[in-house]
């Protein structure tokens, strides 16, 4: 038995050596020469909120584009789910030890990360926040979407499409994250302020999980047969709502989504979904790296970089401006 486990361990060791050898050419590991890689380019470390989600892949795409353009080296990493605040802090700790020239950071919990960010500031590492802000004056700049304004636009479109009266509901991705709260509240507040004849009858959370969001949306539709519309606050939630509408065959319900992805794009093209708000994830990644480079070169950077958002539907989905910010 010992022999087997010895062989097993040996094999694992070999395997990991091979793996690290394979990947070393794209992301060279820890270095200690003051934020310069072996090849002499400045090193910018980026910690995002995740990497699995299409949205973060698009942010990475933008960051890679800027890295190429401004001739810097970047690393891009993030925890597996957007609730792993602790994991993200560990990642932040680890990259600080690599002494980056600059740091891009999308905080899962802006309070929890303050001590480490302070450390970065003390070491004169410029910090650029992206996607959601960090409180205080540590970040030189924040590249983000104004989530409240974006969700308010979704509310306006919803009101317009249902004729400014009736029952609607929200399927949100979660009740604690900043984007979850701001998108929900931005939508709800706008409806309450501007459209007294529209009633939000229910808000449910599907964790951004397609299957759970589907079941949540179906339950809402069962409980409120007169429902006229549902807003899904992120890609998984919106796809869940679309699934629910098509499974129950209630295609007259107005669905408005958030972000993009192939399924949302298809749903809009086929008419199952009225439209969606898209952020500019590629722009977020690009602006983050650009701001970091500017800071390194001693240029002044704008404190709040609004990376913008758009409403897209069947009519403008093929416009160049929209196409550029959608991801599949």
């Amino acid at each position, binding site marked *: 038995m010992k022999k087997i486990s010895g062989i097993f361990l040996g094999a694992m060791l070999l395997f990991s050596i091979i793996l690290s050898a394979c990947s070393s050419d794209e992301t060279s590991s820890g270095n200690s020469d003051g934020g310069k890689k072996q090849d002499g380019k400045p090193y910018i470390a980026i910690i995002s909120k995740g990497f699995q989600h299409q949205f973060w892949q698009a942010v990475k795409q933008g960051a890679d584009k800027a890295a190429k353009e401004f001739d810097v080296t970047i690393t891009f990493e993030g925890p597996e789910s957007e609730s792993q605040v602790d994991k993200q802090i560990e990642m932040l700790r680890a990259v600080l030890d690599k002494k980056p020239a600059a740091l891009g950071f999308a905080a899962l919990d802006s309070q929890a990360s303050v001590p480490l960010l302070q450390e970065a500031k003390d070491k004169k590492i410029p910090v650029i926040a992206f996607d959601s802000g960090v409180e205080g004056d540590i970040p030189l700049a924040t590249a983000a979407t104004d989530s409240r304004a974006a969700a308010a636009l979704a509310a306006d479109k919803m009101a317009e499409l249902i004729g400014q009266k009736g029952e609607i509901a929200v399927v949100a991705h979660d009740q604690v994250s900043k984007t979850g709260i701001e998108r929900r509240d931005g939508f709800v507040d706008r409806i309450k302020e501007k459209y007294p004849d529209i009633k939000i009858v229910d808000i449910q959370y599907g964790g951004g999980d397609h299957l759970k969001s589907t079941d949540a949306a179906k339950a809402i539709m069962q*409980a409120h047969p007169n429902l006229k519309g549902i807003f899904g606050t992120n890609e998984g939630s919106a796809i869940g709502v679309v699934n629910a509408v098509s499974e*129950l065959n209630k295609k007259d319900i107005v669905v408005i989504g958030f972000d993009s992805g192939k*399924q949302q794009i298809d749903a809009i093209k086929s008419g199952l979904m009225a439209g969606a708000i898209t952020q500019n994830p590629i722009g977020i990644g690009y602006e983050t790296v650009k701001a970091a480079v500017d800071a390194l070169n001693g240029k002044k950077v704008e404190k709040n970089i609004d990376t913008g958002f758009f409403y897209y539907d069947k009519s403008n989905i093929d416009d160049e401006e929209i196409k550029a910010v959608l991801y599949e």
Partner: protein
Amino acid sequence: MESQVVLNEKKKVQLKSSQAIQQFLAFASLIVLVLFFSLASPNFFKFDNIVGILLSTSVIGILALGATFIIITSGIDLSVGTVMTLCSVMAGIFISSMGLPIIVGVLGGILTGATAGMLAGLAIAKMRIPPFIATLAMMMIAKGLALVISGAAPIYFTSYPAFTKIAMGQMIPGIPNAIFIFFLMAIIGGILLNKTIIGRYTFAIGSNEEATRLSGVNVNKWKMIIYIIAGIFTGVAGIVMASRLNSAQPALGQGYELEAIAAVVIGGTSLSGGKGTILGTVIGALIMSVLTNGLRILSVPQEWQTVVVGAVILFAVYADVLRNKKSK
């Protein structure tokens, strides 16, 4: 000798009756829940909603069927959620990326589950790694592989409408096939557990592994077979999930294992092994989804839904403990 046989018979009868009580209790709770929600909301007991509940039970239910076998052996399988995801990703690779016939992709996905089960079984039986650790490792391996293989992006079956029909087609109008697949798998599980040598050894290993070994049974071999069977169930769940979502979502799946285990436990299968039924698991899975759906229809906030489900699990296991005390 004869008295021992009589004793065994007596014990058997006792065990049988205790299981009957358990199942009756679980079934009664299900009926009470359904009655309660039907009275509380006129929208609960409707054809569409009942179909919705059954549909939302199917994925977790099929996972739970496989987990029943493992838990009866007094093992545990933490890997079912992410292995399920890996199975749907593999099906996606075979069908969408490689363009193989759908049946090949489906079998490939199921085979992936069987392979993962075999590896977990191998680690547990041959390498003597405790099931908790072995399947924890498998959970991470499967999760990582699903992301690596898919390139951290969803794989779509949009060009293969026949694949969507597997779960969402309607052989009987109004009832999606996923529900039949769930019941079919339950029947297969019931036959395996009650009418075959596999089932007999599953119970034997769970009641007393050492005695089973001493009586000349190749426990290692049978353990592996049991984990392979559970893997096959996981594979089927992966196919149903992918088919319902019309895509393989590599980031989903984690957390499903705990829901599956909860369904098994609510259904009266004992975590200490040797006891359990397929019917119990089916009822347990139904209780979970009736609860979730009913609370959603009543617009109970999600935070409280989770609290209620947790309390139900606690109560179900406590009932089991009480009964065991009595029968001793």
